[in-house]
């Protein structure tokens, strides 16, 4: 081991996916034996950086030093050998295995001269290890029967049992209660005392002030700054995280806002949505802001019949409606551009024109047969309107860039009888130039008199587009702001995370 004071040093890390830069030159240094916070908005590049560090994806350019030695991290196995491990946000373990099996998976002790697991030794080793790590867990219990907090400790124990020295914790408190959070933070302090290095990713800033020594802020794939936690406060961190360079206030708005077209009142679903209400007017763009899991997507999906709800009063143009499935919502004139484009939006191996027309084929059917020429013309018009960049509408959608894929998804609804347009994270994973085009498209929808709802966790884009924003957290609407209030508010993020 060299005498570098840094456990991890990353210099000029760049990474692109399909031509879109996720990381545009990150510098990241973590001192050994410290807890180092990594913060930034969704899409700032935290996950990608951690994937590079744990060997899940390779970097394009840049240098990585582990304990002062320059290294290329080739694989997850290689990262483990270097002592790097992650406790992911979505814990992965086998729920019908015991705690001991999960902790020693792949390294179970076997009986001499056989391949049979030596259960006695396994549990004894596990108990000893847990005692050494000062983690109190029942080694013989099934992992699925533990509560979330204990499951997390089990995953931490697994990482430590593999002698990890650099431990990444990705939103470790996202699903913990207050008492459990305190317990976890205590344990992190203990690990620090043992000389371990922790990289701590969290949206909850107050935890960072409690347990971290230094903080690095990322924004749009770049390092904003690295500072000792003692030199920052809440407001300063938020200002560093949120990109205010967009000249939003200067934008002149000419929305011709009319009567309420679509309203969702008191929609509730056990454990997910608690009495959520929002509405949107003709020609208006309403934002639903919040972090992932705040209930924005869930509220819209339930209202449109994709998921179930326990109670709700939904009105379209003043008339009560209830949609059994999303086809009915579409037929009534409500379009949803879903959150996960690849999974829910596109038919990747199908030509562009068949993607555009798939939900609208009745229009091109004569005597049961498709009129493919009319269909192609329709698709050509719709994709031209949104200037989808493609060589031919016969090209498969999977071969397009993210921005153009999103335009194809939007074009499915552009020439239909749509009154309400709902777009869920419309610019996620799309590069900056294409983002602007999507904003213009959404702006034009409103200008044409459609009622538009945009779900997003990016403040600048909502500031840019919206006339009104509902802020959601933990399944509730906690605040509703006008455009000016939202632009002025420095407290938006605080509101969203409930500080």
């Amino acid at each position, binding site marked *: 081991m060299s005498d570098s004071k840094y456990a991890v040093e990353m210099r000029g890390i760049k990474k692109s996916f399909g031509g879109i830069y996720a990381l545009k030159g990150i510098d990241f240094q973590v001192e050994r034996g410290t807890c180092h916070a990594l913060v930034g908005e969704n899409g700032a590049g935290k996950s990608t950086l951690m994937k590079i560090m744990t060997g899940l994806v390779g970097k394009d350019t840049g240098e990585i030093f582990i304990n002062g030695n320059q290294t290329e991290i080739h694989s997850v196995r290689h990262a483990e050998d270097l002592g790097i491990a992650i406790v992911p946000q979505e814990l992965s373990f086998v729920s019908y295995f015991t705690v001991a099996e999960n902790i020693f998976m792949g390294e179970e002790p076997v009986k001499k001269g056989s391949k049979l697991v030596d259960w006695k030794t396994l549990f004894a080793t596990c108990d000893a290890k847990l005692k050494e790590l000062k983690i109190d867990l029942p080694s013989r219990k099934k992992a699925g029967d533990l509560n979330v907090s204990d499951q997390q400790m089990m995953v931490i124990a697994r990482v430590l049992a593999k002698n990890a020295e650099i431990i990444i914790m990705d939103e470790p408190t996202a699903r913990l209660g207050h008492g459990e959070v305190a317990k976890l933070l205590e344990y992190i302090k203990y690990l620090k005392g043992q000389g371990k290095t922790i990289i701590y990713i969290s949206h909850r800033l107050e935890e960072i002030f409690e347990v971290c020594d230094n903080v690095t802020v990322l924004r749009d794939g770049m390092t904003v700054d690295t500072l000792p936690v003692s030199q920052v406060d809440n407001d300063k961190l938020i200002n560093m995280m949120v990109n205010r360079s967009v000249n939003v206030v200067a934008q002149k708005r000419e929305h011709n806002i009319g009567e309420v077209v679509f309203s969702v009142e008191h929609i509730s679903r056990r454990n997910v949505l608690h009495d959520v209400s929002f509405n949107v007017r003709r020609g208006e763009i309403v934002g639903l802001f919040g972090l992932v899991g705040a209930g924005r997507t869930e509220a819209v999906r339930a209202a449109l019949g*994709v998921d179930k709800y326990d109670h709700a009063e939904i009105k379209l143009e003043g008339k009560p409606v209830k949609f059994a*499935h*999303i*086809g009915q*919502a*579409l*037929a009534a004139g409500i379009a*949803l551009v*879903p959150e996960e484009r690849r*999974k*829910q*939006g*596109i*038919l*990747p*191996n*199908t030509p562009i024109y*068949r993607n555009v027309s*798939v*939900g609208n*084929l*009745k229009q091109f*059917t004569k005597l*049961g*047969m*498709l009129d*493919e020429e009319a269909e192609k013309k329709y698709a050509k018009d719709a994709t031209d309107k949104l200037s989808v960049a493609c060589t031919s509408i016969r090209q498969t959608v999977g071969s397009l860039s993210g921005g153009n894929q999103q335009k194809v998804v939007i074009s*499915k609804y552009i020439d239909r009888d749509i009154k309400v347009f709902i777009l869920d994270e419309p610019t996620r994973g799309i590069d900056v130039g294409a983002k602007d085009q999507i904003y213009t498209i959404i702006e034009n929808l409103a200008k044409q008199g459609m009622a538009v709802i945009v779900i997003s966790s990016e403040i600048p884009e909502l500031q840019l587009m919206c006339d009104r924003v509902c802020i959601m957290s933990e399944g509730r609407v906690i605040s509703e702001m006008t455009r000016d209030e939202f632009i002025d508010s420095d407290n938006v993020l605080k509101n969203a995370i409930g500080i």
Partner: protein
Amino acid sequence: MVKSMKSLNISKIAKNFGTLIGYIILLIAFTILAPGRFMTVSNMIGILRQIAMLGTISIGLTFVMITKRSDLSIGYSTSFLGIFVAALMVNAGMNIWVAALLTIILGALIGLINGTIISYLGVPDFIGSLGVGYVVAGINQAYTKGHPVSNLPESFGIFGSQRLFDVLPNAVVIMIIVLLVSYVILRHTRLGRYIYAVGDNEEATLMSGINTKKTVVWSYVFCGIACAVTAIMLTSRLGSAHPQAAEDYLLNAIAAVWLGSTAFKDGEPNLAGTVLGALIIGTMANGLTIMNVSYYYQDIATGLIILLAVIITSIQRQNKK
């Protein structure tokens, strides 16, 4: 640039037409190895007649496999439908056309049950269709006690053993009709589009407002109808109905559709490919029989050919990623 375009086209041709080229090589090989016996008009028509049933049932299975599902009941269903059509004529004295029509309706019904269990009740396709297959096979055994139904009316031979203009076997004509109808459904109707859309991305299709469950049920109904048509042809050809006459068809049909998905459409099941797949299987059997290769070795050879085609496709697909 020009050069890379060219090599791209060559690899594309190899990918889309490799299996077809392989089949042509197979034909040439048998022509050389069995001179004067393999490449004759009557033997070629014989191969077509041999694969008419396999082709038809495989076309039905193609509908299901496009949606990325399978139907393990087809062998049992086809055996039972053969018994059914024979019993209607022999034991109930029905007219051959009425009996055939009722059989097709029953085939559609079996498909409907399969599709409903798998799509609406959410049972995994393998176990759902296997369960239906067991029940159908059980009814078959209980009714026949394992004995064939024979003494079919001579006129029933129209569906299998007779020839159009004394040249083309009627079974081949029927397969071609099934192929054309299937082509029109898959290529030129909304339902066909939906079936392909479900196979490409089921959730995105649902989010586009399409009733994906109904689409899946329809694909099983088409498969059931194809089983019924196959059963009628088979019973007509054999002149009697055997309780287990069609059980081999399950594996052969899966092989034909898989082989077919290696041709023409980049790894997706498709009709032309399925017919090619059935042709390859039928030609192997025919050619090896002509060369007096014993039945046991024939299976080994067919198995190796199938593996070869699928391995090549899998390697191509991995390289694409």
